[in-house]
């Protein structure tokens, strides 16, 4: 196997990359592989947020419901985490997540992961740092997408953006 494939694989598990072996032993029993068919929902908008998913393969569309149809807001790719609000007690999902292809994730029940982090705050901090980095990436991507949508709209409009 060429090193690039190894590097790509390591990138997918970035959120676990700073855990030492003892911490990994605490976290891995909480993880399970989940598989979704193309078109299947990982979760619906407004559901109780229960699981953090690391996407191992396949793309996932994050969608907002508008009446009886959905609007795709962003696409999450392998290496990204979705459902990270599961780590916040009592939170609900802000989007619905739909598999655009057969999708494999490594998922963690948010309440169990939170309990493990409460018992080992150093581990919680290491996980939180990596999750925050993933969230930052997602926000950057969303910002670029907004700029793109804005420029597309203004180029179709007689009104031009002010400089």
């Amino acid at each position: 196997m060429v090193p690039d494939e190894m590097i790509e694989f390591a990138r997918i598990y970035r959120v676990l990359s700073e855990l030492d072996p003892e911490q990994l032993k605490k976290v891995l029993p909480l993880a399970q592989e989940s598989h979704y068919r193309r078109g299947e929902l990982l979760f619906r908008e407004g559901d109780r947020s229960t699981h953090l998913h690391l996407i191992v393969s396949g793309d996932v569309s994050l969608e907002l419901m508008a009446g009886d149809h959905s609007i795709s807001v962003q696409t999450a790719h392998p290496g990204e985490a979705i459902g990270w609000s599961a780590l916040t007690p009592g939170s609900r999902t802000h989007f619905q997540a739909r598999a655009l292809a057969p999708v494999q994730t490594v998922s963690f029940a948010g309440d169990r992961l939170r309990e493990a982090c409460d018992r080992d705050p150093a581990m919680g901090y290491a996980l939180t740092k990596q999750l925050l980095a993933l969230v930052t990436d997602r926000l950057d991507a969303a910002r670029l997408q907004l700029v793109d949508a804005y420029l597309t709209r203004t180029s179709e409009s007689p009104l031009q953006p002010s400089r």
Partner: protein
Amino acid sequence: MPAELPGKILEIQVVRNNRLGLVEFGDTRRPIFLDLVPDAKVGDYVTVHVGFATGRISEAEALKDSAEAYEEPGTAEHDLQLEEAGPAMRRRVKPR
């Protein structure tokens, strides 16, 4: 208990701070983290869960576990998921 599948280490590389192995599961090869089995070397058999080797096992145990995988099919839904996920996952030892 999480499902684990046995595999054989074909190659080991260090990527950043992680020790990764190329592990063979039947006719499929996947990269796997070896950080939890620091003594494992090329040719050893390991049990694997969600991309991480969790322990070393003997060749006899690995072959026995692989044989059981074929004799213990999962639910129809589970088998379909494995079918869609590709050959690597069809060699899972036990259904969830």
